[in-house]
């Protein structure tokens, strides 16, 4: 029988569950983490290995998790930076004939604290009501209460931005027959890389701290600004770097990459009350009037009004709350989306954005050639 454990919020609200995953080291150093929920009905593995969740505790609203085990090929990164995973029911993971272990094993091996048997719907409703909040995973309620009582005196968190704890250490190349695309890795999902590979690009993946000069030295034909965790406004280096790049070559920004583009062009971002995380968010293309289902995972959004004069034009909008979902630059071949065209998990129907980006890259390089 696994031990009882708790998720405790600052206001004393407590959710009870049972431990799974890695709990041994955590008791020594308690630390609050942002609690977020995702409403996707499939793809727990992709979510657990999505580096955009770095530093967060993830609540899955789909109640049955782990059903088909773990398949290494399904991982979105070779690591996880997820701090906690909260589910209603955890399965042993035998539903697939070709599973290679279980979610539980993975969490254990990769230091993810798990809490199962939780009334995740109640927790989701709580987060919806009060917004994304920091929460604490603890083994006793008392420890939780004590922690929050002392939280006033807590020294400021001096650890690095999660982007730098998620990005690749050194640049590396993935061979391909086509043009060279530079990917700035803020915590890039593999399926972004796979989508670029599928379009025959040669790819160089750069660490988040790379400089504009380092990147340009490789003379890429296009640049992809990847997804990644955390508050974009805190990434001043990244913003400065993007500012130096986006007028020089075709750029595709995805999620955090999209936000960095907006910030680089003088726009602003803001924190959404409880974010968009799921696989069913409708996004409408303002020009065609057609809507598609998108995969989303973001806590921040670009402020539409702040784009005035930035050179960017909003092209896609969320059908539910009207937030900015995509933009294109009026002068430069630069486009970006707030959602995840690579899905994983979630709908694949927006993968054509990569086709569009490829067209942009090809057109741009022929023009350059002519010039």
């Amino acid at each position, binding site marked *: 029988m696994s031990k009882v454990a708790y998720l405790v919020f600052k206001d004393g609200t407590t*959710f*009870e569950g049972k431990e799974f995953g890695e709990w041994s080291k955590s008791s020594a150093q308690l630390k609050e983490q942002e609690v977020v*929920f995702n*409403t*996707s*009905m*499939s*793809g727990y*593995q*992709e979510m657990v290995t999505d580096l955009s969740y770095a530093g967060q505790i993830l609540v899955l*609203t*789909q*109640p*049955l998790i782990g*059903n*088909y085990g773990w*398949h290494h090929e*399904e991982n979105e990164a070779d690591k996880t930076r997820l701090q906690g995973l909260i589910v*209603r*029911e955890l*399965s*042993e993971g*035998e*539903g*697939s*004939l*070709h599973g290679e272990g279980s979610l539980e094993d993975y969490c254990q091996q990769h230091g993810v604290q798990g809490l199962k048997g939780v*009334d*995740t*719907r*109640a927790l*989701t*409703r709580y987060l*919806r009501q009060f917004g994304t909040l920091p929460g604490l995973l603890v083994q006793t309620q008392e420890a939780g209460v004590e922690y929050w009582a002392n939280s006033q005196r807590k020294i400021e968190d001096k650890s690095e931005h999660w982007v730098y704890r998620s990005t690749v250490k050194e640049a590396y190349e993935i061979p391909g027959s086509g043009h060279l695309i530079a990917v700035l890795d803020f915590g890039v999902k593999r399926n972004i890389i796979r989508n670029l590979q599928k379009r025959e690009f040669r790819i160089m993946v750069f660490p988040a701290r790379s400089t504009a000069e380092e990147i340009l030295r490789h003379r890429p034909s296009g640049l992809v600004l990847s997804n990644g965790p955390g508050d974009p406004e805190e990434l001043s280096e990244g913003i400065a770097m993007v500012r130096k790049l986006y007028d020089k070559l075709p750029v595709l920004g995805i999620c955090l990459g999209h936000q960095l583009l907006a910030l680089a062009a003088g726009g602003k971002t803001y924190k959404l009350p409880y974010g968009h995380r*799921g*696989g*069913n*968010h*409708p996004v*409408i293309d303002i020009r065609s*009037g*057609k*809507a598609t*289902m998108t995969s989303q995972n973001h806590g921040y959004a670009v402020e539409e009004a702040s784009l005035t004069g930035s050179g960017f034009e909003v092209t896609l909008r969320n*059908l*539910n709350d009207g937030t900015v979902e995509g933009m294109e630059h009026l002068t430069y071949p630069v486009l970006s989306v707030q959602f995840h065209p690579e*899905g*994983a*998990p*979630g*709908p*694949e*129907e927006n993968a054509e954005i990569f086709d569009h980006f490829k067209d942009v890259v090809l057109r741009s390089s022929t023009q350059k050639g002519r010039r």
Partner: protein
Amino acid sequence: MPRKEWKKVLVIGSGPIVIGQAAEFDYAGTQACRALREEGVEVILVNSNPATIMTDRETADRVYIEPLTVESVERIIERERPDGLIPTMGGQTGLNLAYQLAKRGVLERCEVTLMGTSLKSIDQAEDRESFRALMKELGEPIPESMIVSHVEDALIFADKTGYPLIVRPAFTLGGTGGGIVQNVAELKQIAQSGLQASLISQILVERSVAGWKEVEFEVLRDGVGNCITICHMENMDPVGIHTGDSIVVAPCQTLTDREVQTLRSASLRIVNGLGIEGGCNVQFALHPSRMEYVVIEVNPRLSRSSALASKATGYPIAKVAAKIALGYALTELKNAVTGKTSACFEPALDYVVVKFPRWPFDKFTDADRHLGTQMKATGEVMGIGRNLETALLKAIRSLDIKVYGVRLFELERLSDAELKTACLEPDDRQLFVFAECLKRGWTVEWLVQETGWNRYYLNILKRLVDETTSIANTPWDEQALLCVKRLGFSDQEIASLWKSTEEEVHQFRMKHSIRPVFKMVDTCAGEFEATTPYFYSSYDVEDEGEVHKLPKVVVLGSGSIRIGQGIEFDYCSVHAVLALRKAGFESIIINNNPETVSTDFDTADRLYFEPLTLEDVSEILDKEKPDGVVVQFGGQTAIGLASGLASRGYKILGTTVEDIDRAEERGTFDRVLQELGAKRPRGGGATNMEQVQRIAQEIGFPLVVRPSYVLGGRAMDIVYEEKELEPVIKRALSASSDQEIWMDQYLLGTEVEVDAISDGENVFIPGIMEHLERAGVHSGDSIAVYPPQTLDISMQDRIIALTESLARSLKIKGLLNIQYVIYYKELFVLEVNPRSSRTVPFLSKVTGIPIVDWATQVILGRKWEDIGIPLGLWPIGNRVAVKAPVFSFSKLQRVEPSLGPEMKSTGEVMGMDRTYEKALYKALLGAGLSFTTYGSVLITLADRDKAEGVALARRFAEIGFRILATEGTTRYLKCEGIRVETIAKLHDGSNEIIDGIRKQKIQYVLNTTTHGRAQASDGFAIRRAAVEHGIPCFTSLDTAAALLQVIESISPGLLPL
């Protein structure tokens, strides 16, 4: 925005309930009509099924209850001149009709636009060849197949594709002669027999994907091209069993996201490729261990699955499909559940649902209950839970088959070998068979290997089996109880494991406050605030169904559609809800059938999607604390809960539990009749042969025998003479759990049925219905006529008087239904049902009286005068209405089609006109009879029917029919001077009769031989052959007489000089 300004739109319903087409289309059609009227469109509706909400005057602007034939719909179109027609709401029936109307140029001539999905798209999805071509073009894999006429061609095909293969003979029913083959030898053998079985000597050979996962997507697409999937579902059992007979889980649980997205993208490509504008269902087979799939089927319309998807997600598919048909884009519509977010989104579930089929094998004990490609379930139930175990157990409880867990006791008797066979040849009990295997220690691994079920689902089942054992070993342990309650175990199952009673477990649970909370179905997994009043229970922490302090009443629904308890009771439940709302009460409905209007979240003020058991209902009542519970509209399911609820102190509104019991319990009811001086057929109970003989002597023959407490629905029998008595009695005694049987006089009289409203003092009778068939044919299977055609005024007065005194004496508050038989001018009471009945919607439609509404007001205690209900019998109008039963025999192999005291029909139609003949004609037409006015009639009569049969034979002959008869009947008819040709009997080794039926050389069969259960008999073989080949078969002389009456009035005679 709408493409044009639609003024008038025709909606076609799906007709009678048959296997494969049940209440889901009432739900779809009703929602569509409401959605259209919301837009100010005038709605014209046609459907032949009176027991539907869609045929209510309130649902459409003009309702035609007419046969669903091309001619009759064409007449409606000619008269109404609608500018649009929606073809996709009425199942395959509606779709086929619209297709025919378009093909015959009716739509063009009358300038009717086909709305939503175009004719071309329908054609492309329905026509095998053009569908294959499109799939090829889209690059979507389909199982390779080939039509062949020679075994050699089949072998060549097999060389190319490999094994296993499925062989399906063309034009045979019930799949006889086909099967799955694994190698050359098997293929040779099965192909040969298939070719022989096929009427046109053709077989379809197809690559078999049996054993793959079966996955379905429900898709909506608008005219702009926005395309969304509402829900995906996975069958627990692999490909091989019809989806309608599969246990279905939504959303898919064993697919990786990549698999889900691959199939989702494929369904979008297909639906876009077809250019669907509305709902569409796409079914896939997915390889269990590698990324390979094939498209199995596409339905370009709303379906049973879309109703399920709608209830499983809370997304109103039919409503949105109707708006799309008008021309709206998905992006222009709002999600009705949140009221704020867009309808152009895909619902997220934070629970799991299990759909469980409801099979009719409790009624048809002789039927072949093996499952395969032919659907056999009449209805279905759905369970919602926060884990799969709970959802599954809720679904099982909802079946109303007295099974409360995964144990099915009859399987404990099976030997290991028998159990193994049961695993390999699945029937309706397969889940329970697997549970029994696991209980015996057989491994999940073995079951995976042998049955192809997914390990995940079998593990869930194993957990339930293991917990069953472990809870049995820890009686009265609070923690253990909480643990199994979280898995969805019922008090009743726990009581049986603890060798206690449900009440004691309930008390223990109350003492320890182990109670469920209620969660909301909100389409968005809690992401947005929703106001849907749609709840399910869960052993969780937070209860979110905030109750209102309002006057409120709970209505219990009737559960799944099954033989004997059909859509009529959903009709009544819905009307009770509407009446409650009108009377200013908050209406709350509890039901578990995903196909129905009653479980639409905007029918009642609040919907609890829960099993209809004492435990589940009590929990809701404890939470809601209503002013009372109404049980009389939900059929026997709801009535059956009355005494349990009353003894727990809940208030039952309407007729009290004591009075319900007085009507239902034989002894007390006899006393009531005695006091009133009313008669019932004589009879009595017996426990041994001696008593049987004595009673038989007393009451005489024929007599009806029935077990006093029926196990598994083992049926009643009619015994015509002494020599038949002993075997029947022996069988009945063994079927009866308490070794007692009841014997009653079988009065071959006219059966009459009455529905009435009473407040215990005043009585109102909306109408008297006369049954066309004499008593002995179950009232649900007989043709009913309103107003009566043969009863004189004095008899009607006696019926009124007796109905009134029975209502008063039983202190009825609300509805009651009485079945009478008139035998030699004497009135006998057959039974009194202190509840709404099957005929209430029929009577409501023909008289225009809001029967349920009035009854509900009476139940609420409103004064008779204030409601304005008249007294006595409602005066008849100038219309005659006939209700005809509809059967699904062709889908149920080995079921005896002969009518008798056990109900067998699955649905009904109504024919209404100015004269009896015309109404009868419409009813029979609506029931699917094609009136052939010439040809051959095969007549084989039991000895007791011969005298009476002569007249019928003569009438057939006079119209010009050729009479064929077996030897005995021929001799008899010849003596009476009728021209007859002899046809050889089957047991003489001749195949002449069956061949004649198969080759359509015979147009009607009139057969009354070998009543009972002699399956091997000639009569049975003839009747089965007739129903399987669509030849009208009459097993009651009265039905045949009715047919003749119609034919005589419509056919010209043949009179040579």
